[in-house]
C-alpha cells in the first residue's frame, strides 16, 4: 500500500512542527523517519495515522484521501513508544481488541477471532503469555504484544513511533533484527520513527532525514551515509570532522592557508568542510593539505582513533580521526592529513 504526503504544514502556536513536507512511500517499503527530537518526525507519523491533523496539505493512502477519515477509520496500525497496552486486559484480549470492536456487519465470530489472535501471538513468539496482564511482561515482550495488536486489524500500513525507544540497549538490538525479518515475512508498508541513526540505517530500506520540520534528504541507508545532501545530514549521520573554510574562486582555505583540495563547484564564501573520520589519509609531515600533532591514540579492533591538534590557523583545532592499524601512530608525532572524500557546504545564515 502506498502513502503520499503533500505540502503538509503543522504549527503548534508559532512553532512550525512541519513546514511543507512532501513524502511518497512505496508498497512494501520499510521506511525510517530519522531526526533529532523536535524535528517533526513523530508529528508526521501521527498525522498519517490520524492522531493529529495538519493545518494544511494532503495525505493519501492508496490514492484515497486520508484526512477525510479519523484514526479509527483509516486501518492504520500504530505502535507507541510506551506500548499503550490496555492494562486491564490480558495479552490475549489486547490483541483481540481491534477485532472485537469492528462494526457488527464485518465482525468475525469468536472462533475466528481466537484463531487469529493465536496466529498473531505465534508470529511474535509470545503465545505462552496469552493469559498474562501487561504489567507482568518485560518491556520487549510488551512491545511485541503491541505490534501483534496493531497487526490484528490487518492494517494497510504500519506506523511505529520510536518502537524501541523505551528499551535497554541489548533488547533494542534483538528487536531491530526481529522487526526486519518480520517485515520481510509480512511485507506490510511500514514507517518507523527513530532518533537513533544506527537503528534507521540498520533496519530501514529507505531513510528520511528530518530537521526542524523539513525533510533534509530521502535515500537508501548507503545514500544518506555516503552522499549526504546537506550539512545537517552529514553532521547528523555518522561521525564527521567539520572544519570552517573559505571558498574563493575554486580554492578552499582554512584559516587563510589554501588546502590542496578542489572546491567541487562550491559557491564562494564562508563554508564548512565535512570529512568522515575514516576518510582522512595519513602521511608523513609535509605531504598533505593539513598538518598536526598527534596528541593521543587509542587502539581497538581494526582501527586506531587519534586526536590531532591541527597546526596553523588561529587557536587550536583538535580533530579525531580513525585510521587503520597498518601504521601505528605515536603521541607527539607530526603527521599530515589529506581528505580522501569530503563535502563542502556553504554556511547558511
Amino acid at each position: 500500500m502506498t502513502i503520499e504526503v503533500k505540502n503538509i504544514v503543522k504549527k503548534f502556536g508559532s512553532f512550525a512542527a512541519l513546514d511543507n513536507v512532501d513524502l511518497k512511500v512505496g508498497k512494501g517499503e520499510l521506511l525510517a523517519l530519522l531526526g533529532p527530537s523536535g524535528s517533526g518526525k513523530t508529528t508526521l507519523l501521527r498525522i498519517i495515522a490520524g492522531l493529529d491533523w495538519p493545518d494544511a496539505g494532503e495525505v493519501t493512502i492508496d490514492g484515497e484521501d486520508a484526512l477525510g477519515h479519523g484514526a479509527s477509520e483509516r486501518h492504520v496500525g500504530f505502535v507507541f513508544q510506551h506500548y499503550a497496552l490496555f492494562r486491564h486486559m490480558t495479552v490475549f484480549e489486547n490483541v483481540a481488541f481491534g477485532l472485537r470492536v469492528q462494526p457488527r456487519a464485518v465482525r468475525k465470530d469468536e472462533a475466528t477471532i481466537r484463531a487469529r489472535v493465536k496466529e498473531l501471538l505465534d508470529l511474535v513468539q509470545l503465545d505462552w503469555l496469552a493469559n498474562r496482564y501487561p504489567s507482568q511482561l518485560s518491556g520487549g515482550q510488551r512491545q511485541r504484544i503491541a505490534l501483534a495488536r496493531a497487526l490484528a486489524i490487518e492494517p494497510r500500513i504500519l506506523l511505529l513511533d520510536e518502537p524501541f525507544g523505551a528499551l535497554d540497549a541489548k533488547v533494542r538490538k534483538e528487536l531491530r533484527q526481529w522487526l526486519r525479518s518480520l517485515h520481510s515475512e509480512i511485507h506490510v508498508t511500514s514507517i518507523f520513527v527513530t532518533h537513533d541513526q544506527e537503528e534507521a540505517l540498520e533496519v530501514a530500506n529507505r531513510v528520511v532525514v528530518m530537521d526542524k520540520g523539513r525533510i533534509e534528504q530521502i535515500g537508501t541507508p548507503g545514500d544518506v551515509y555516503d552522499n549526504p545532501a546537506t550539512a545537517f545530514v552529514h553532521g547528523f549521520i555518522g561521525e564527521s570532522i567539520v572544519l570552517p573554510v573559505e571558498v574563493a574562486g575554486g580554492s578552499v582555505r582554512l584559516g587563510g592557508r589554501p588546502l590542496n583540495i578542489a572546491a567541487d563547484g562550491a559557491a564562494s564564501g564562508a563554508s564548512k568542510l565535512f570529512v568522515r573520520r575514516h576518510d582522512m589519509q595519513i602521511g608523513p609531515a609535509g605531504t598533505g593539505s593539513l598538518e598536526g600533532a598527534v596528541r593521543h591514540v587509542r587502539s581497538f579492533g581494526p582501527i586506531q582513533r587519534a586526536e590531532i591538534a591541527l597546526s596553523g590557523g588561529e587557536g587550536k583545532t583538535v580533530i579525531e580521526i580513525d585510521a587503520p592499524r597498518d601504521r601505528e601512530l605515536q603521541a607527539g608525532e607530526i603527521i599530515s592529513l589529506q581528505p580522501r572524500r569530503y563535502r563542502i557546504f556553504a554556511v547558511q545564515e
Partner: protein
Amino acid sequence: MGLTLTWLSVIILIPLAGLFLKTLELSPIQFWEILTSRRTLNALKISFGLSFAAACVNLVMGTIIVWALVRYRFPGRRLFDAIVDIPFALPTAVAGVALTQLFAQKGWLGAPLAELGIKVAFTPIGIFIAMVFIGIPFVVRTVQPVLIDLDPEIEEAAASLGANRWHTVFRVIMPSLIPALLTGFALAFARAVGEYGSVIFIAGNLPNVSEIAPLLIVIRLSEFRYADATAIAVVMLLASFVIIFAVNRLQRWAQTRIPAH
C-alpha cells in the same frame, strides 16, 4: 511512641471497647430481639437501602461530573471543581437545615416539586436527597486523579485499532476507572449510612417510614435504653468495618492489576 499509643487508647480504643463490652452484656437472644424488632429493622432498611440508592446516583453523576471537569474546558470550570468539596466542608447541621429549607413545601425547589405532586421534605425522598448531597465528593475525588493520570495513548491506540468513541470510552477508559469508581461508591455508601446531621432535618423522622438508624440510636439513648442503642450501633459499626475492608482490598486489587508504569 508509648505516649501516642496511650493517647490513642484513651481516645479511640477504650470507648470502642466499651461499646463491645456493653453488647456482651446482652444475651444473644436479647440482641437478636432488639435487631429484629420492627422499628429497628425498618430503620436499618431505610438507612442501608437509601444509602445504596444514593451511592448509585453518586456513582453515575460523579462520573459525569469528573468527566466534565477533567476532559472539557468551560467557563467556571475551576470554580465548580472547588464547589464539589462543599458537602465535605459544610457542617452537617447547616447542610441539613439548608436542604430542608430548599425542599420544604414553600422552598425554592420544594414549591415547584409540590406542584408536580412530589413531596420531598419529611419523606424518604428527602433522606435520599441529603445522602446524595453528602456522598457526591467521595466519588468525584476518588475518580478524578485516576482519570487525569490516564495515559492518553491508550485512547489513541484504541482509535487506531478501529474502535469508535463509544467503544473507547466503555471498553478502555471505564474499565480502567472501575477500582476508583467502586472505591468512591463504597465511601459514599459508608458515609450515607452513618450520616446524621444533614439527614435528620429533612427526614421527617416518622418511625418505620423515614427514621434512619443513627437517629434511632439517639432516640434510644434519650430513653436511656442503652442496650438497644448499643446493639444498633454494633451492627452499623460492623458494616463500616466490612466496607473499609472492601475498600482496602479494592485498592490492593487495583494496584496489582494496574500498577503505575
